[in-house]
């Protein structure tokens, strides 16, 4: 019987898949564990609430946390309405044809642009041409351009997943198209849109290249007063701590602490989105 070799290859495939899956898991666990173990001893009230001193070699990272917080918030404020509007247009209004195909190609292309190129684009358009200067405004607009494709694609998929029968049912009652979208399509698409936003937020909080030329300050131990101010940001600060200090080795604990906070900030933004998502999932299930 040929059962045995087939059985063998079956087991081989099974275990290699299993091994690969666990390997991925291990990498994630190792990174998190390393950052937590290295960063936890540094975490203190002083580290979280003090301004950095000596280029960040001493003191805390409070302005850096605030900077990243503002950046992510402004980025989402720009990208979410724009992305949702684009997705609504593509899914609900546009006649599918050459124009929508071209728009979709443009979106995919935008998603594929290297972040440093986007940074240069932001420098040219927002910082110099529009005269925003290096500022939270310019930086978050640049980041918004970066995460827009993710949000549009996820939102459009979420809208398309809403059954056509919900739209028909609403229209048949005499609702206008916009009333139908607003009351009987969008609310059901929120969970999917949130998933796109979660991915976008993670990237916006963690990217260095787009903010390098548009907003991030090397050392600015004061809090930003308006969207036209520069600010510090966690990923760029981490880069400075790891490469630009006179004694990089000595700043090791600060690097770990900053990395831990960066991960925590991203996770907390994600958590907020997940809470919103599960609220809407529970409220509208089909």
């Amino acid at each position, binding site marked *: 019987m040929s059962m045995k070799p087939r059985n063998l290859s079956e087991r081989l495939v099974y275990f290699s898949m299993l091994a690969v899956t666990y390997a991925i898991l291990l990498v994630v666990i190792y990174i998190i564990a390393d950052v937590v173990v290295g960063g936890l001893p540094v975490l203190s009230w002083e580290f979280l609430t003090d301004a950095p001193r000596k280029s960040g070699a001493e003191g805390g990272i409070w302005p850096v946390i605030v900077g990243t917080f503002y950046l992510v918030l402004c980025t989402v404020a720009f990208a979410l309405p724009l992305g949702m509007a684009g997705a609504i247009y593509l899914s609900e209004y546009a006649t599918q044809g050459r124009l929508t195909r071209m728009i979709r190609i443009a979106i995919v292309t935008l998603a594929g642009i290297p972040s440093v190129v986007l940074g240069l684009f932001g420098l040219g358009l927002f910082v110099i041409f529009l005269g925003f200067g290096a500022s939270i405004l310019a930086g978050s607009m640049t980041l918004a351009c970066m995460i827009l494709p993710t949000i549009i694609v996820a939102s459009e998929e979420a809208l398309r997943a809403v059954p056509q029968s919900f739209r*028909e*049912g609403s*229209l048949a009652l*005499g*609702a206008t198209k916009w009333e139908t979208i607003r009351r009987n399509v969008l609310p059901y698409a929120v969970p999917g849109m949130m998933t796109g936003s979660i991915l976008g937020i993670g990237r916006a909080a963690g990217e260095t290249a787009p903010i390098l030329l548009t907003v991030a300050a090397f050392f600015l131990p004061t809090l930003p007063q308006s969207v036209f101010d520069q600010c510090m940001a966690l990923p760029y600060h981490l880069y400075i701590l790891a490469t630009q200090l006179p004694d990089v080795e000595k700043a090791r604990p600060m690097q770990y602490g900053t990395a831990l906070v960066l991960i925590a900030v991203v996770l907390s933004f994600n958590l907020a989105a997940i809470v919103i998502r599960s609220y809407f999932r529970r*409220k509208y299930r089909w």
Partner: protein
Amino acid sequence: MQDNQNHIEAHSLNFFYGATQALFDVSIGLKRSKVTAFIGPSGCGKSTFLRTLNRMNDIIDGTRHTGKILVDGQDIYDSSSNVIDLRRRVGMVFQKSNPFPKAIFENVAYGPRIHGEKNRRKLEEIVEQSLRRSGLWEEVKDRLEHNAMGLSGGQQQRLCIARALAVNPEVLLMDEPASALDPRSTARIEDLISELRGEYTIVIVTHNMQQAARVSDETAFFYEGKLIEVGPTKQIFRNPAQSQTEDYITGRFG
């Protein structure tokens, strides 16, 4: 041909999905406060015709028509006609029940809210009245805040009927409303149609010959996009004028 008895009239209606013609020169009068059944084999155009009566086909890209449809003597495709108002007056129940994934109350209140009713007490009144009419009130009155998706198939369809009634329509279009239901739920829907008869002009598309015979006053037989014959249900079933009609209702084809 304008006739006071007729609530809805079609005059030489041709309908196209892109290059495909789905309806050919359909002219028919649908009598006020009567139940008219559309019968015919799949793809004969009866659902397409039904969906022109509240302009639901408008939402499909690339459709067009020639000819006229009059509701209360007014051309519904005329540029002065208001499609929103038309759809409020001409309600629709779909083949596959489509409750919205929210509370039972919110489902029925959806239409009135859209049309500007904000008063909570008034909404409660409308919801109760509509649910009573669709025979669902006793079953759901204690769980109006539950999600409508938790109802059984037959209950969902009666909820959709209540939702349609809540905006106080004059006409009720039903596209095979019982085709996805078990016999008991089907019987309830048929009873409901009998109860609503007289109050509303009802048009029902059905594949079920017995159902057409049981619930309707008038029957129209469609075949390959053409209206073959229309008349009192008894006459159509006992003594059809056209041989095609007879072949269909005796089960020789379709």
